[in-house]
């Protein structure tokens, strides 16, 4: 028996080691790239305003941490509010579309049209209409989330086999029961595929919104640092924005694992 327990313990230890061994290449590559970056900047004597070294960027986090934090919070708020607003509207609209052919015919083309306008072109218009507060940033962040979620959600809600509908028909189920028992659940893999995209693009939306006449947030910090040739600050801001997007992506992926436990067919 003892031998068997030992074997199990060995197996678990080996599995853990394997996990780390699988992570090693990516961690190693990242460290190597940082080293290379540092080496190139120092060996070729590149001026800081063109490209700062990783050490200089790291120093910004230490010395100007408070500035970064103060500007991080509004962007986080706008991105999250935009994420919630854009996706909620998209989901509700998708539910309406699958129940009303008229609604789908009337509004889908408009949604497609809105999606084709570059977000950078809508931003100034929204600032003009909504003023200079949080509102235009949130709307831009939500607009950028909206379309992929709408398209995926409509597909997801319709991804129910004809036989499943026949089953529900034999059971005399109402449309509402079909929606809650079947459609919503079967759309979850599609929804999460879209939410993963939205979790990163909502940060872009918030930052783009802050580019136009704003004096707070990571977007405004990017503009300010660029015009003043404060490259280490610019790099630090970019890294912070990217980290926010990655954190959003990871959280969405964790939520997906929690809510979608069954095996799914092809979801793109």
């Amino acid at each position, binding site marked *: 028996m003892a031998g068997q327990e030992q074997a199990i313990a060995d197996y678990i230890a080996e599995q853990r080691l394997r996990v780390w061994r699988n992570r090693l290449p990516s961690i190693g590559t990242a460290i190597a790239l940082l080293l290379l970056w540092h080496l190139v900047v120092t060996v070729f004597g590149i001026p800081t305003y063109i490209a700062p070294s990783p050490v200089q960027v790291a120093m910004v986090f230490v010395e100007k941490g408070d500035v970064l934090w103060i500007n991080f919070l509004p962007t986080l708020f706008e991105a999250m509010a935009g994420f919630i607003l854009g996706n909620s509207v998209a989901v509700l609209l998708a539910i309406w579309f699958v129940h009303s052919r008229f609604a789908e015919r009337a509004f889908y083309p408009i949604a497609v049209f809105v999606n084709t306008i570059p977000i950078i072109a809508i931003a100034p218009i929204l600032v003009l209409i909504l003023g200079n507060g949080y509102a235009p940033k949130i709307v831009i962040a939500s607009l950028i989330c909206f379309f992929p979620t709408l398209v995926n959600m409509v597909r997801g809600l319709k991804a129910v086999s004809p036989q499943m509908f026949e089953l529900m*028909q*034999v*059971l005399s189920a109402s449309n509402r029961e079909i929606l809650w028992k079947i459609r919503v659940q079967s759309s979850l893999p599609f929804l999460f595929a879209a939410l993963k995209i939205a979790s990163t693009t909502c940060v872009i939306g918030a930052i783009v919104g802050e580019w136009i006449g704003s004096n707070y947030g990571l977007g405004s910090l990017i503009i300010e640092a660029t015009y003043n040739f404060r490259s280490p600050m610019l790099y630090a801001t970019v890294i912070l924005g990217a980290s926010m997007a990655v954190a959003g992506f990871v959280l969405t992926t964790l939520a997906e694992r929690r809510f979608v436990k069954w095996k799914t067919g092809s979801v793109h």
Partner: protein
Amino acid sequence: MLPGHSGNSAISIEELAVRFGDPLNRITALEDITFEVPKGSLITLVGPSGCGKSTLLRAIANLVDADQGKITVFGRTPEQARLARDFAFVFQESTLLPWRTALENVLLPLEVGRRQDNIEKHAEPAELLELVGLSGREGALPHELSGGMQQRVSIARALVCRPRVLLMDEPFGALDEITRDKLNEELLRIWKDTGTTIVFVTHSIPEAAYLGQKCLVLSRHPGRVLEFMDIEFSSPRKPAIRDTLDFVQVTGCLRTLLAEAGRV
């Protein structure tokens, strides 16, 4: 008793015709179909592919509307029978909800439609899973079960409202032969235990002969009743009868009929 309902039949069909397509392009799927399914019997339905056997089953289940003629299920129209949960349907695919466990899938019929009526007369889901040989697998998700097991769950689900008629559309058609033979055995056992009337569509001649007390043979273009033959084997049926001369004669007879049906 309801008018027009002869006491011994579970399903009675008179001069049924079903047509598909728009007025410019009409296709007659079924024509002049008349037969009766006695209460508590198990009848099988065979025919060449495209003869409308699935359509016939769907017409009984109120999934397809009849253009002519009359269908009654225990004296009711298909719609009334559907609302009263007189029948249940088993599809070729198990149509289980992939996010629900076996037990939760069996419970589905109790959660939708006219809930109150169902709860009073429903069967115990755990017992049904035992009946179909799946006790111990109540908590399994469909993807953790084999194709045969999935189909067992869908049979348990069909039985949960204690239907008086079980309509089965090639339920074992996608399974391998060994699993299919085993499920045929179990279907006969379930039929005996529950006393449900069963209408079973299949494209397998041995299956039709082994299961059916009667076998309805359809011809195609359009689908008509070619023969409604009695199959008289000693009861209860054992797998060994498949090797008897009687069985070979019955399947031979069905095969001849089907060849004829294909030519019509």
